[in-house]
């Protein structure tokens, strides 16, 4: 019997797991995917917003401002990557400047720090490639960028070290409300008994709600966003997060520098009926291309290395829905977590545990908030590199030549508390295949390392989900 079962191992579920791992509780995380942070968390803008935008008085406003400051703690404790970019909300002419005034007022009410206006000249000094028609910007210095996959991974890895259990490939099919506990049946056939359940299933939170026959008043109306990724050689073209003014023309295509030097363009924002649809479209990508130029000039479109789409779990409720079910005691919904969900994530976890669950337990003595820093070999000093290579010669061999990822980093990504044995899992953890050639060179090498480290035949190494091997039939019998 578990004390708490969290459904969903995205950034929200992972941070809740970490929050609960502080206490002497038996906690389980169930994930329907083959890996953590595989749906909404893996496809978004990665921005830790200042909290200027959500309307004052909403939960979104409260938790995004708090969440932004909690990222400072996550950086210290989990050693996550943070890029302190600051942000500009851009206005083209007097009409849009009026909207900036309103945003400024809202940001003040939300107690966002250091918000100020810059005239065109001042803004261009800091951001030389700003679009020529931008007349004024609202500068938000506390805006920063994280690497959401990593935040989820590290939080969950830390939670696992502190006793939480994770089970992947467990799609929840049935939830029975029994006396004093719940029975959760997964597609694997396993049944998990838990006193409390936290529904953090992202775009599927309403499906989970329906399994329980609960009448919580939210439904997910998913919105798709399409993006372009520019290679990290584009680094420096734009150094702030650039937001358009909320107007008919802009519709929210942003330019966002990323922690690894890449630049993201996007997203679009289209309602979709299909929660699983992460396909891109010609129209969507053209829209991104066009609108990005409304914010900046000299965008190096020739450095596009990838396009992707993600689905946001916008709900009919209008704000974050973080409540206990009225009908089912001990069943908690954390739903409708769309933008600024990444920002608010650490605050959502705290809010749920402190304000909603009202957990009143002492922090266990064995709780260790610190996650040892992951070794990114290329970021070490020459002395550290020499030392690490002495300890472990595999740091000497480069596997991903675009991103300078060594064989030992791949091995580390395979093993470890939250290891992976898929090509995509390794890409997420170690960045092998994230560069200019998009795995053209290193994929076959990574595949062989996975096979070696996990004792699998080459054609049983999956690309992502179970049943997606890269290699098919062996053509020649081996001798």
């Amino acid at each position: 019997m578990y004390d708490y079962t969290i459904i969903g191992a995205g950034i929200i579920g992972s941070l809740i797991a970490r929050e609960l791992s502080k206490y002497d509780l038996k906690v389980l995380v169930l994930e329907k995917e083959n890996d953590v942070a595989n749906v909404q968390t893996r496809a978004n803008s990665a921005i830790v917003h200042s909290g200027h935008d959500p309307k004052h008085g909403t939960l979104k406003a409260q938790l995004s401002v708090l969440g932004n400051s909690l990222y400072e703690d996550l950086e210290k404790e989990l050693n996550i990557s943070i890029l302190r970019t600051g942000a500009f909300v851009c206005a083209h002419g007097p009409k849009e400047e009026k909207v900036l005034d309103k945003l400024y007022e809202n940001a003040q009410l939300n107690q966002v720090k250091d918000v100020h206006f810059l005239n065109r000249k001042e803004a261009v000094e800091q951001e030389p490639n700003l679009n020529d028609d931008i007349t004024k910007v609202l500068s938000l210095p506390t805006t920063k960028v994280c690497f959401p996959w990593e935040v989820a991974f590290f939080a969950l890895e830390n939670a696992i070290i502190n006793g939480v259990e994770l089970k992947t490939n467990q799609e929840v099919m049935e939830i029975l409300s029994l006396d004093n506990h719940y029975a959760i049946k997964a597609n694997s056939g396993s049944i998990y008994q838990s006193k409390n359940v936290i529904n953090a299933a992202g775009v599927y939170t309403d499906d989970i709600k329906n399994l329980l026959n609960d009448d919580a008043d939210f439904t997910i109306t998913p919105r798709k966003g399409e993006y372009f990724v520019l290679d990290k050689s584009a680094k420096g073209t734009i150094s702030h997060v650039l937001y358009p003014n909320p107007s008919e023309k802009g519709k929210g295509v942003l330019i966002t520098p990323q922690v690894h030097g890449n630049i993201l363009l996007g997203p679009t924002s289209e309602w979709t009926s299909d929660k699983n649809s992460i396909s891109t479209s010609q129209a969507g990508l053209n829209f991104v291309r066009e609108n990005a130029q409304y914010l900046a000039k000299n965008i190096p479109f020739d450095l596009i290395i990838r396009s992707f789409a993600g689905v946001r779990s916008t709900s009919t409720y209008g704000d974050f829905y973080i409540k206990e079910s009225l009908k089912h005691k001990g069943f908690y919904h954390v739903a409708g977590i769309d933008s600024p969900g990444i920002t608010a994530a650490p605050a959502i976890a705290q809010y749920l545990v402190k304000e909603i669950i009202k957990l009143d337990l002492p922090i266990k003595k064995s709780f260790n908030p610190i996650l040892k820093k992951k070794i990114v070999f290329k970021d070490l000093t020459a002395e550290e590199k020499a030392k690490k290579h002495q300890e472990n010669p595999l740091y000497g061999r480069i596997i991903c030549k675009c991103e300078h990822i060594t064989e030992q980093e791949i091995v580390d990504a395979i093993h470890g508390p939250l290891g992976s044995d898929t090509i995509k899992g390794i890409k997420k953890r170690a960045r092998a295949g994230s560069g200019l050639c998009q795995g053209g060179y290193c994929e076959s090498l990574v595949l062989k390392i996975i096979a070696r480290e996990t004792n699998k035949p080459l054609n049983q190494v999956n690309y992502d989900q179970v049943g997606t091997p890269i290699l098919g039939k062996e053509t020649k019998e081996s001798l």
Partner: protein
Amino acid sequence: MKKQYDITIIGGGAAGLSAAIEAYDPKINILVIERDKLFGGILNQCIHNGFGLHVFKEELTGPEYAHKLIDQFLEKKIDYVLDTTVLDIKKKDDFVITATNIEQGPMRIISKTVILTSGSYERSRGQISIPGDRPKGVMTAGSAQRYLNIDGYLVGQNVFILGSGDIGLIMARRMTLEGANVLGVAELMPHSNGLTRNVVQCLHDFNIPLYLSHTIKDIKGTESLESVTIQEVDENYKFIEGTEKTFLVDTLLLSVGLIPDVKLFESLKLNIDSITKSAYVNQKLEASIPGLFVCGNALHVHDLVDDVTIESRKAGISARSYALRKTHVESLSKAITFDQNIRYIVPQTIDFNQLDTELDLAFRTSKKIQRATFIVEQSNQIIKKVRATYIVPAEMQKIKLQPKDFVSNEAIHVYIEEA
């Protein structure tokens, strides 16, 4: 291995080995750095024949061609390291190369000259922004070739190929021979991007349809690829309504172009040709930084490995003369200009202070031309005329110039007169 060299060659494929063999001189120290565990580069996975007719006067497979080069190279007792990746090249007085391998870890090598022969990489799905789902089963043709010919695995059973580059054509035949069904090849352009012989021998001979002026409209598949839809395009590359065709396939191979792999230029401030996406070089294959030579597919994408060898031999000779040279040669470089029928010319410049041997202008046209005359002008005089027929962008053209052909030290202009 020493800490200091006269010539360091980065890459031990066809270009690197050819350059090394030719640069050899008992008076100088040469090092070849190869990132793979074997020499030969991409030749090792090109198990089809058709290589070597010009250089070795016989038809060879890729691995055979590589072996001939490797044997010649090893005879010279030139220093080399395998399984070693170069991370960075900086230019101070000499070149400072940072490389790494398992035995030594990160190391620095000082070199008077560098020949960069890092080859090319394949353009990926992301770079051409094909819309649709992103399932498993979409990969570059070269990756599939490596998995099949080196590792011995087919990547799928029902295959569609986008792009009629040579690797895609070769893979259409290769996968068919291994029992896969290749349903077709789509090419955005109204003409094939591969060599004519490959279109005939790899597609026509196996009844594999080639859809010219077609491209991918959509990709479907939640986890693994389920189907691709192609559609015809007009002369402005806009889709023509009602021309969609859907193929149920588990594999989509991309053969949509090679790009010189010049990541190692990052720390060097070089003049770059926006068309070839590699260094601006003079006829000695020397980049805008003295002592840096670039050749093979790292400089521009070649049709034939024989051409890579011929070009790289020149780079080897140039690097050797540079290394042996006692006095500095002032450059007198003039950029070659050309008309709109030409996409690019390599070399991009001629250094008139180093005009001691014949030189080759290698170029591609921007369109198909039946019959034409290539004309080279200098100081308003025609200094060379070459007639050619059946000129296609997929096939590299060449003009040979002798030092005596030049009438001045002024820039040359190249143009095409259609017949």
